[in-house]
């Protein structure tokens, strides 16, 4: 559906003719988000526009309201709401300003700033942020509004939206709202007040797109003190890594013969407040590590499957309950702290008759920059990632549900013998992310979707944390939240131009 000439000219006057387009080639490339091709009923937008300031975003939204045109906004992730006709696609990646206040431990970022860029700048100042597991290339602002957790959220706190301080928000009816300290001055150091704290209205907590009631254009986020030693990058892609200062970091691996002991031990590690992170290590991680090499034939998908079938699968069949755990111990403040953490970990493991072995590994490519986040695709074909957040116990229960349902779909879904569940606790084990990767070929991607559906049906019964794609299913168990968010939306988006709630 084409825009009227008048509306198009109004948009041109907001951003300038160079940054708005209704060319079919531009629109074709903009109508696909992340994920597999051909998924969902995605339509080409009516035009694509690239604002550079909050005022330009405001101008665009006012045009949308004036001409009753729906909009959809994104930076890098799938654009929500493109199943509607005639959408104005607002791409925020030109908004790339960033300021770090190292004394007051916060950074102010616009939507186009990636985690990797923020982290790179923070390292220079002896600071750190937690980069989400989906990759350091994603937008700090968008991801923080949504979920925004990374492995080191274990130590520094979970859920991106909880580290948001002040924010600048262009509401769906075109008002610029500044929340927290930015309401008083151009400073994003504080989130609460004056007036009611509206950050919850803006963030989504993964329940829906954060753009359903407007577009957030700037946030202050907390950053954290870090070691003064540099994490030096080495290598040429595909084998690049960060060297960890050995006086401050040490990996430990510990293997349990049964999953229950592993979960209990992880809880204890959390209670003792040691480690930069602790997690279980699904066997496919090891196969993936073998897949990443330089130019040899047996790398990539070939390397993955060779290792999986010839090394991991036989081990799993021998004892499917064997559970490998890994912790990165962290001498925050001093070398002595690292020594203390090592002693505590040894004591905990000894209680379970398990030896905690210091790893020779001195590098990281996953937890500080998340440079290999998308590597799970290297196995070829497709995977589905069943992600849930709850307590460790609850995640364990849900993993059982995933495993039972997976059996119904094997084949064509890969038989992983119930081992690809990845438990990644946050906030010293008060919360746990459960991610279950299930692989199938490109042709069998549909079977993975059916597996997801089956899992969600059963998750509802155990009160699992709701996730966006199954909002209607989870809603009744969770105070009918989809209904409430729809009401908020009606209030803040009277012309219904922003994307739908779920």
């Amino acid at each position, binding site marked *: 559906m084409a825009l009227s000439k008048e509306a198009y000219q109004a948009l041109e006057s907001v951003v300038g003719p160079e940054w708005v387009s209704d060319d079919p080639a531009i629109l074709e*490339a903009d109508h696909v988000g992340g994920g597999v091709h051909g998924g969902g009923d995605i339509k080409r937008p009516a035009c694509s526009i690239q604002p550079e300031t909050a005022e330009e975003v405001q101008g665009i939204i006012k045009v949308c309201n004036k001409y009753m045109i729906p909009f959809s906004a994104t930076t890098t992730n799938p654009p929500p709401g493109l199943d509607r006709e005639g959408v104005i696609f607002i791409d925020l990646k030109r908004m790339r300003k960033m300021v770090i206040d190292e004394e007051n431990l916060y950074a102010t970022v616009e939507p186009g700033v990636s985690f990797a860029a923020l982290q790179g700048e923070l390292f220079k100042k002896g600071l750190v942020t937690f980069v989400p597991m989906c990759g350091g290339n994603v937008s700090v602002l968008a991801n923080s509004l949504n979920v925004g957790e990374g492995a080191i959220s274990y130590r520094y706190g979970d859920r991106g939206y909880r580290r948001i301080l002040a924010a600048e928000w262009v509401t769906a009816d075109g008002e610029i709202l500044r929340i927290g300290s930015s309401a008083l001055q151009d400073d994003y150091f504080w989130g609460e007040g004056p007036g009611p704290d509206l950050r919850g209205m803006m963030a989504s907590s993964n329940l829906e797109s954060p753009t359903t009631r407007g577009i957030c254009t700037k946030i202050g986020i907390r950053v954290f003190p870090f070691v003064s030693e540099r994490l030096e990058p080495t290598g040429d892609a595909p084998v690049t890594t960060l060297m960890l200062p050995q006086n401050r970091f040490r990996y430990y691996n510990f293997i349990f013969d049964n999953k229950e002991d592993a979960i209990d031990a992880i809880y204890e590690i959390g209670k003792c407040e040691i480690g930069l992170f602790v997690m279980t290590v699904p066997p496919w991680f090891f196969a993936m590590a073998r897949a990443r090499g330089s130019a040899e034939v047996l790398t990539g998908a070939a390397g993955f499957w060779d290792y999986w079938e010839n090394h991991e699968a036989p081990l799993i069949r021998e004892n499917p309950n064997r559970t490998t755990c890994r912790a990165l111990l962290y001498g925050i403040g001093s070398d002595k702290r690292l020594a203390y953490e090592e002693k505590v970990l040894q004591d905990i493991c000894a209680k379970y008759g398990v030896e905690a072995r210091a790893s020779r590994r001195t590098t990281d490519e996953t937890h500080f920059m998340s440079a290999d*986040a998308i590597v799970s695709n290297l196995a070829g074909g497709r995977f589905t990632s069943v992600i849930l957040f709850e307590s460790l116990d609850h995640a364990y229960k849900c993993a059982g549900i995933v495993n039972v349902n997976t059996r119904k779909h094997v084949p064509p879904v890969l038989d992983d013998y119930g081992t690809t569940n990845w438990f990644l606790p946050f906030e010293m084990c008060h919360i746990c992310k459960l991610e279950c990767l299930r692989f199938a070929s490109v042709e069998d991607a549909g079977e993975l979707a059916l597996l997801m559906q089956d899992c969600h049906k059963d998750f509802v019964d155990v009160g699992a944390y709701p996730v966006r794609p199954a909002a209607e299913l989870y809603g009744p168990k969770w105070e009918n939240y989809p209904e409430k968010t729809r009401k908020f939306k009606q209030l803040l988006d009277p012309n219904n131009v922003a994307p739908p709630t779920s």
Partner: protein
Amino acid sequence: MLSVDEYTRQAKMCMRCTFCKFIDLNWVKSLRFSRQCPIDTRYAFNLFSPHGLLHSALAELDGTLEFTPKLMEALYQCTLCGACDARCKRNLDIEVLQVIENLRIRCVEQGKGPMPEHRVMADNIRKTRNEYGKPHEDRLKWLDGIKPAQKADIVYFVGCNSAYKQPELARNTARILSHNGTEFMLLADEWCAGNYVLATGQVDLARELAEHNVKAIQESGAKTVITSSAEVYKSLKVDFPRLLGKSTEDMPYTPLHITEYLNQLMQDGKLEFKKNVRMKVTYHDPCNLGRLSEPWQEWVPNYVRVIPIGKVWRRGDRGIYDPPRNILKGIPGIEVIEMERSRSNTWCAGSCGGTELAFPDFAMWTAGERIEEAQATGTDAIVTASPDVKELLTKAAAAKKANMAVYDITEIIYKAI
């Protein structure tokens, strides 16, 4: 060139994760220099990005998108620098660059491409065997008294730029070789190597050039071909075998960039730089010498499930990165400081892929970005190993009024011998 099935398969594997737009994430040190795709950084619309072009390839294939002027603008402004390809192959192993190259070939096949300036270049080459349309008989004018051997084991493949536009670079190369006692000969009839011809999708002419030059090399009897042009080097090592349906190792010659050759002499203790060249420099990796120069291996698609059987990947990590650096570090008085984006993370200077011919303003912007990055190192000069890149960076430095000298590495080496 990719079969339609393989082209589709590769394009479909793209998840639009956007890793292709950034340098390797472990190497990101700043917001300013974190991005890597020139068209994406300049234009921001998703069409102007690797994943946008991959999706366009699928849309064009299924008939939902034609080669509109805007698509061609994105397609031909892409410098084919291969940054996206190297990044993608860190985690996904998609042949991003080959899909974009094939999209250009389809554009030409349908009579829409290449851009008018590329057609002029091709016409020039057909008529005069060089891309500038200068008289073929002037190709050896650069010699200016230098006398190559009539017969030698080594051929020096000069390339159009050094032969016609920057003859001092050709003379430097010849004198450097002679200084080390290396006997070299020239081809009896060197034609344009055709790097930009293939890059712009004009496969038939590119194949004709490859066939002629390979035949000329064979007839020379030489087994080693040395060049100081990154673009020629990539043609010799990657494009010629690819166009002739062979692997690099099956070619009747061994291609060497001058930096590889001299580095080997240094390692063998046969070359030592004695003169002091007091300079603080940064080195710019030309894409054609770095991530694009890995040996070509012919592969007929053969999959078991999702596993490509017998495929040897070109992921950008085996490019010629160390030899030029070793040489610079071996010259007394030279201090080398790396830019944030170096080696396989290098930012394209803008001269690759025929982009500069059709979109000179965009190429200048790209080169200008590189000049700013070089300035951020605090060095006095930027050294590169490609006549085309040197020429463009020199223009960009002048346009920016930057206090930054630009050198081809042969100029520095020549100062040191």
